[in-house]
């Protein structure tokens, strides 16, 4: 049973056709990497898959809970990182501690979110995805701003997620460690 099915999906933004008749099926353990130049519609495709944007044509079927990591940090800037992630943990019914450790954020739990660097913010957004335990991960430029260690942790987390029967749809203009991922060139 597939986790995500896009059939003949088209996207029109601002009167411009970004892509059309796009088919994509993600099975448990599967992954797809969306590539393309800036403005090709990578982020729009991720938002369509997340249900945040209506496809201009075609059907989108999401058969499992999804977790999204995009450019929106969605953490309260005044809160300590641990508490800010804890809010989403309560909504997801999960603890964030393990995910923070997996992304190398354990030492920053007391740091206010507004003091975090770009890479640390990205790690925090990914830690929320890890903590949520949703079967379907939607990652928009997940490696942006990450250092070597962060990319290695992301790769390990994605591999563990797929090994556990999860699926990943990622958009990136740089190589991600997603062995055997389907390529979607926009």
């Amino acid at each position, binding site marked *: 049973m597939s986790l995500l099915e896009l059939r003949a999906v088209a996207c029109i933004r601002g009167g411009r056709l970004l892509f059309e008749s796009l088919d994509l099926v993600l099975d448990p353990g599967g992954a797809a990497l969306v590539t393309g130049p800036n403005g090709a519609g990578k982020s729009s495709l991720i938002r369509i898959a997340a249900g945040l944007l209506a496809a201009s044509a075609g059907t989108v079927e999401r058969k499992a*809970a999804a977790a999204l990591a995009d450019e929106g940090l969605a953490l309260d800037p005044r809160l300590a990182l641990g508490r800010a992630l804890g809010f989403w943990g309560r909504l997801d019914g999960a603890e964030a501690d393990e995910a923070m450790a997996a992304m190398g954020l354990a030492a920053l739990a007391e740091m206010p979110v507004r003091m975090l660097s770009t890479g640390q913010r990205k790690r925090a957004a990914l830690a929320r995805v890890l903590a949520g335990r949703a079967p379907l991960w*939607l990652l928009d430029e997940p490696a942006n701003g990450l250092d070597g260690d962060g990319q290695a942790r992301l790769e390990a987390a994605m591999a563990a997620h797929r090994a556990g029967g999860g699926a990943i749809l990622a958009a990136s203009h740089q190589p991600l460690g997603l062995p055997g991922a389907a390529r979607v060139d926009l």
Partner: protein
Amino acid sequence: MMPLLLRELRLAATGGSAALPLVFFLLVAALFPFAIGPDSALLGRTGGGALWVAALLAALLPVDRLVEPDRASGVLDQLAVRGISEENVALAKLAGHWLSFGPPLMLAALPAAALMKLPAPVLARLELGLLAGTPGLAALTLIVAALTSGLRTTGALAGLLMLPLAVPILIFGAGLTEPDGSAGALKLLAAASLLLVAVAPFAAGAAMRAARD
């Protein structure tokens, strides 16, 4: 729902959107007697209406903090991905906003009424009116906040959108504080307020969804 409500209360307490309207309300109450003069008969007659104008303008102050920060930082997107409907988010925001706005304003009305030298029966009717009217004001603020989220300059537009819709609450609220303030004014005030509260989750929810595109 509960985590959302608690978050709204925490944001209101730490972000200044709870304190600012109160300070503004008390400031007007302190300044009004200076402008009108210390004639207690005149103050008692006009004070109730002046406090209602102050409450209405105070309600407008947190309009840029209710929805826009959550839209800009992606909180609304994250909630939507989790399958929490915009209407539920709006409902939590409405409850959180009223709790941080209505009861504190009713407390602040006590010193404000003293500054205005309002007689005790008028004060009682003012408090009753605020209890009935502040949910409507909070609902209106939320609707306008959701409608203007994503726009660059919200201040003036928010005022233009909100004030005409708030006029019924102002009329019946101020009417209730008049010496012959009748039960009819309270009923109409409660009705106007209830209508806004009932509409707010759907209107604000739809506006939040529309702001996503």
